[in-house]
C-alpha cells in the first residue's frame, strides 16, 4: 500500500521485468570473478583489467547510493563524500602497506627517516582493527561534523559548501608528509592481504565478490530504510522541515543517523576500492571527485535507489571508454552530459525509464 516516493523502477515497470533485469545483472556480476579464475587462454576468460575496472565502478556505485540516501531522501547535498571514501581507503591502505612492509616500517616512513610508527598507526597491522578504523574514521568524523552542522541548522547550499571545504581541508592535510600518510604519493605497492597475494586471481575474485555483496547489502538496507517510516520522515524533512518539527519530530537525530550511515557506507566502499585499484592518495579527497559523485546521482535520478547506481555505472563506463578512445574530450563529454540531463531529464535516467514504461 503506502509507498514512499522512493518507488524504485520495480513498482512502475512491472516487478517482473525489474526482477529479471536485476537477476541478470547480479548473475553477471557473480560470474565475472569466476570467469577470471579460468586459464588466461580460455575463450571466456575475463582479464584482470576488466575485473578491476568493474570492481572500481561497483565501489563508486556504493558511493552514489550512499550520497543518494542523504541527498535524494534527506535533501542534504554533500559535496564532500569523497573524504569519507578516502578515509575508509586510507584505513585499509594502512593495513595493506604494513602487510607489505612486514616487520619494518612502511617505505615512505624510512624515506622521511622516521624510526617508529606514529601513535595512530598503532594496531594497524591487525586486519580486525583496520576494519574497525574503516568504519570508525569516516563514522566519527561524520558524527562530529554532522552534530555541529545540524545543531546550528545549517542547510542547503551552506551545508554543501561546508562539506566541500571539509574534504578540501582533508586533502591538504593528507598532502603533507608530516601527517604520516605518505604525502602526495599516498600508499601503493601493496603485495599481500591476509597473507594472500593481492594480485592473485583468487584474491581478486574474492575482493570483487565482497564488493558485490556490499553493494547488494547497501541496496537492501536502502530499500528497507526507504520503505520504513524513517524513510518517510526523511522525505518529509526534505520537503517541509518546519512542519515536521511542529509535528513533534526532532530533525537533528534523523539527519545525523542517515548522514553517519552514509559516511560509513562510503568508508566501506573506499576500503574495498583500495586493494582492487592498488593505490590510495590524497587526490581522492579532491573536491572534483565529490562533485563528480553528485553528478552520478543527479544523472541517474536522485530519490530512487536504482537511479544512482545507473548513473555511477553509466558515467564511469563512459569515462573509461572515452579516456582510452578520445582522452582529451572526456571533460567536455561529462559537461555535455550534465547539461543534457539538467535540461531534459530532471528526474535522471530512471525518470526516463519510468516514463517509457508507463
Amino acid at each position, binding site marked *: 500500500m503506502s509507498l514512499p516516493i522512493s518507488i524504485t523502477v520495480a513498482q512502475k515497470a512491472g516487478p517482473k521485468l525489474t526482477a529479471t533485469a536485476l537477476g541478470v545483472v547480479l548473475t553477471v556480476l557473480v560470474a565475472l570473478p569466476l570467469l577470471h579464475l579460468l586459464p588466461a587462454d580460455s575463450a571466456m576468460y575475463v582479464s584482470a583489467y576488466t575485473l578491476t575496472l568493474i570492481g572500481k565502478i561497483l565501489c563508486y556505485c556504493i558511493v552514489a547510493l550512499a550520497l543518494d540516501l542523504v541527498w535524494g531522501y534527506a535533501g542534504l547535498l554533500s559535496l564532500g563524500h569523497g573524504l569519507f571514501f578516502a578515509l575508509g581507503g586510507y584505513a585499509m591502505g594502512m593495513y595493506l602497506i604494513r602487510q607489505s612492509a612486514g616487520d619494518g616500517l612502511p617505505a615512505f616512513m624510512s624515506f622521511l627517516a622516521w624510526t617508529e610508527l606514529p601513535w595512530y598507526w598503532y594496531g594497524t597491522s591487525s586486519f580486525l582493527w583496520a576494519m574497525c578504523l574503516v568504519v570508525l574514521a569516516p563514522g566519527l568524523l561524520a558524527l562530529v561534523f554532522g552534530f555541529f552542522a545540524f545543531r546550528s541548522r545549517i542547510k542547503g547550499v551552506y551545508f554543501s559548501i561546508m562539506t566541500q571545504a571539509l574534504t578540501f581541508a582533508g586533502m591538504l592535510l593528507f598532502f603533507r608528509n608530516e601527517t604520516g600518510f605518505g604525502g602526495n604519493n599516498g600508499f601503493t605497492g601493496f603485495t599481500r592481504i591476509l597473507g594472500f597475494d593481492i594480485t592473485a586471481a583468487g584474491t581478486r575474485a574474492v575482493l570483487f565478490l565482497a564488493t558485490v555483496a556490499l553493494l547488494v547489502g547497501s541496496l537492501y538496507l536502502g530499500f528497507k530504510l526507504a520503505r520504513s517510516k524513517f524513510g518517510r520522515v526523511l522525505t*518529509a524533512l526534505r520537503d517541509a522541515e518546519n512542519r515536521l*518539527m511542529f509535528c513533534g519530530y*526532532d530533525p537533528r537525530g*534523523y539527519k545525523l543517523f542517515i548522514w553517519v550511515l552514509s559516511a560509513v557506507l562510503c568508508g566501506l566502499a573506499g576500503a574495498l576500492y583500495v586493494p582492487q585499484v592498488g593505490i590510495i592518495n590524497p587526490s581522492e579527497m579532491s573536491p572534483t571527485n565529490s562533485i563528480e559523485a553528485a553528478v552520478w546521482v543527479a544523472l541517474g535520478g536522485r530519490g530512487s535507489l536504482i537511479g544512482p547506481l545507473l548513473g555511477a555505472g553509466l558515467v564511469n563506463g563512459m569515462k573509461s571508454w572515452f579516456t582510452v578512445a578520445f582522452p582529451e574530450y572526456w571533460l567536455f563529454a561529462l559537461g555535455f552530459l550534465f547539461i543534457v540531463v539538467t535540461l531534459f531529464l530532471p528526474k535522471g535516467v530512471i525518470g526516463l525509464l519510468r516514463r517509457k514504461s508507463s
Partner: protein
Amino acid sequence: MRATPLPEFMLEPAFDPAGSSRDAIGASAVAAQGLNIRHGTILTLEEINVSFDGFKALTDLCLYIGVGELRCIIGPNGAGKTTMMDVITGKTRPDSGVAYFGETLDLTRMSEVEIAQAGIGRKFQKPTVFEALSVFENLELAQKTSKTVWASLRAKLSGEQKDRIDEVLQTIKLDASRQRPAGLLSHGQKQFLEIGMLLVQDPQLLLLDEPVAGMTDAETEFTAELFKSLARKHSLMVVEHDMGFVGSIADHVTVLHQGSVLAEGSLAQVQANERVIEVYLGR
C-alpha cells in the same frame, strides 16, 4: 492596565476543568501527563514583548486561553497575530514576558519540538503538508506516537492507529484520495489535510492560522462544525479574517492591534467597541 478594562482580560474559562471536561480531555491528558491545568487556563501570555530590528511586533501582550475554549483572534494586518503564534510555538523568542502552557511549562525555555511534543499543534497560514508523501502517509507521520529515530525505524502501524487514521480520513473527507500524493491536492483539500494532521496529532491546544482561507462556502461551513466539535476536548485558538466564520464558531473574540490586545469579548461586544471600529474602519 492598558486601555481595556481588567475584567475583560480575565475571561472565565469556557469549561470547568474540575467538572465534565476532565473526562472529555480523555486521551490528550495521557500524552501530556505533566500538563497542569488546575486553574482552568491552558495558555498564559503575560507582558510579552517582541521586536524585530526596532519594530515592535508585540507590546505587553496579555492573553489567557481557558481549557476547552475556542478563541478567535482577529486584527488588521500587522497586528502581531502570526508573531504571537510564533512565540507560543517557540519559533520566536520574546524579548521579555511570560508564556506558560498549563501552569508549569515555560514555553520561552522550550524548543519547537518540545513544545509540539508537550501538546501544542499548529496549522500554518499557507497550508503546509508533505507533498511527496500520500495523504495517508501525511497522517501517519503526524499521528501521536513516539517520534524518536529508533521508534521510526521500527515503526509499524497498529490496527488501532490505522483505524484512527481511517476515521480522520472520513472526517476530513479525503478517504477517496488516501493514496494520492498530497502535492496533487487542491488548496482546500490541503487545508483539510493539515487540519487532519492536527487531529491525529491530538494536541491539547490547537493554533490555527487562517484555516478557511481559500475554502468554498460549503467547506467553510463544514470547518466551522468541525471546530465546534473539537472545542471541549481541545482548546483552540483560531486566527481568521472571515467574520462570518468567526461569528459562527467563537465563544470569545480577541482583537489584536499593533501588538497588544485592543478588546476582548463576544463578537457582538467586540464589534460594538468604538476603538475596534476606529481601527477597522480607519481614522
